């Protein structure tokens, strides 16, 4: 791809997003728009967790905690501070990025000690971290405590959410094909062998974890500025589990798989609304069914286009 086609492609894609955004806001049913935007936020979460759970083979159970940090940091700037810059749409965009930065920093602090250990310890530490963060927000009165935080400017829309989703996807996809990405993949395949090949296992795990936290923070910021209201219970253990389910259902380590998982996990409960109170029962049963009959997830390690290629080409 030449530079020229790249810029034209980007321009067309952004224009298309803008166009869809405009037509959604003008013509579509608000419920549909809400579901579509929730899908976009789920996409960012699923894709970012896929880097840690799917590619690096580490098991993180605290993604909602990082999402919460992103959300609360960004609203701290836009809603609670009196800086004029952050009241403007541009400033809100930067506040969301700042939320991502704060989440990345938290990811570094959590990841550095716990990623040196092997096995399930990361799962346990991230689980504990997620709960601590939630309880911390619960007890901070100036950010609303248990009552939550209303009055956040509602500036994120289809355009911003899907722009970030696209950025996440492209970033992850390119990353995993770089030497850093290959190093991360080798940790999943065999940690001991990777170490023997001279890969600084602990360092690459932290790198993956920080990147993943950054995008989780972005998702949190977008979510806060879409909802206009957040409370600590939004970022509880179940939220983290939901993201893990997206990754595992879609296929560990496959980015299109994670995206598919994100869509399924968000859409299934909505589509199952006809079953009223049984919908979550059916949802969890289908999760168990996928695990029993398709243990690799729906896509396995493959990306979606591998299914359309002829044999021998991939």
């Amino acid at each position, binding site marked *: 791809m030449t530079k020229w086609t790249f810029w034209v492609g980007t321009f067309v894609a952004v224009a298309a997003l803008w166009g869809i955004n405009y037509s959604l806001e003008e013509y579509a049913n608000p419920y549909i728009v809400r579901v579509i935007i929730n899908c976009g936020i789920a996409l960012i979460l699923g894709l970012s967790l896929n880097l840690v*759970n799917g590619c690096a083979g580490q*098991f993180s159970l605290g993604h909602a905690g990082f999402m919460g940090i992103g959300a609360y940091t960004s609203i701290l700037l836009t809603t609670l501070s009196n800086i004029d810059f952050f009241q403007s749409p541009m400033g809100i965009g930067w506040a969301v990025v700042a939320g991502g930065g704060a989440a990345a920093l938290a990811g570094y602090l959590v990841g550095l*000690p*716990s990623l040196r*250990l*092997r096995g*399930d*310890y990361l*799962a*346990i*530490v991230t*689980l*504990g*971290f997620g*709960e*601590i963060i939630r*309880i*911390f927000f*619960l*007890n901070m009165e100036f950010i609303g405590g248990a009552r939550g935080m209303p009055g956040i400017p509602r500036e994120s829309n289809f355009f911003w959410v899907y722009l970030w989703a696209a950025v996440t996807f492209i970033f992850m996809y390119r990353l995993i094909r770089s030497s850093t990405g290959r190093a991360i993949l080798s940790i999943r395949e065999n940690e*001991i062998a990777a170490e023997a090949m001279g890969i600084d296992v602990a360092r690459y795990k932290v790198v993956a974890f920080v990147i993943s936290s950054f995008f989780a923070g972005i998702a949190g910021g977008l979510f806060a500025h879409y909802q206009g209201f957040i409370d600590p219970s939004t970022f509880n*253990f179940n939220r983290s*589990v939901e993201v*893990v*389910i997206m990754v*595992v259902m879609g296929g*560990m380590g496959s980015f299109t798989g994670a995206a598919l998982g994100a869509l399924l996990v968000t859409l299934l409960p909505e589509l199952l609304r006809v079953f009223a*109170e*049984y919908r*979550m*029962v059916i*949802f*969890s*049963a289908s*999760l*168990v069914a996928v*695990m*029993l009959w398709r*243990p690799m997830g729906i896509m396995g390690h493959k990306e979606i286009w591998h299914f359309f290629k002829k044999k021998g080409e991939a």
Partner: protein
Amino acid sequence: MQNIINGVAQGSVYALVALGYTMVYGVLQFINFAHSDIFMIGAFVGIYAAKWTNGYFPPIVQVMVVTLCAMAFCVALALTIERIAYRPLRTAPRLNVLITAIGISLLLENGGQVIFGADPRQFPSLLSTTSLLNSDELVLNNIQLTVILVSALLMVILHWVVHHTKLGTAMRAVSFDIEIASLMGIPTNQVIVFTFAIGASLAGCASVLYGLSYPKIEPLLGVMIGLKAFVAAVFGGIGNIMGAAIGGIILGLAESFAVYYISSSFRDAIAFGLLILILLFRPAGLLGTFRREKV
């Protein structure tokens, strides 16, 4: 002093649930997320059993009958789950088993909300509360004493089973190395079934004890208890039975002191803070031994 009594009473419930986590982890190396929901189901079975047996027995016998019902139901449930969901995945990657466990846990929680309703229920007060000790600085009632004594008794029995019976020896062998154990002629599947059964029966008993001391029972009850019991198990050294018991009690004590000296709203954070501290300084847990991974 009062904090110690409250802490030990609360901690022994954690310890009983933690034992279920730690035993399954010891044998199969996976976190059985459904365990906490088995505990919740046990509490509901306790409510129904108490309703049906009301008036037939004197209170003490009724408590025993209710406990046995809850234990039996929990065991049956755990074995069904093991057979349907975990056994087909015995050779699958650990992460898949973990996700299946989470799926089962969600299934039980949401199923519980459909069957029992989402509102909290009152656990019947089977034993009327009487104070055994009531001075200015110390209050001890019969329920707290029952909880502590029953848990202690169960742990002693468990310790005897694990260390002094043939079954216990087999369990320890399986947790040491499942493949070698099966080569040595140990029926590993049976041992795993027994492990699940023992864990679930402890959870069933713990759920009735919990219901007696905190009568508010709801379908999402298991989530917090489960997480904390799991923390207790890790704290003591996961896979280590003695560690789970000690971890549970320490966690109960820490929480009750935290409520007294700091603030009750930080109670839940204490458990997880403690967890992160222990993992940073003693990653294998209090009594755990760190096994080096071999190629």
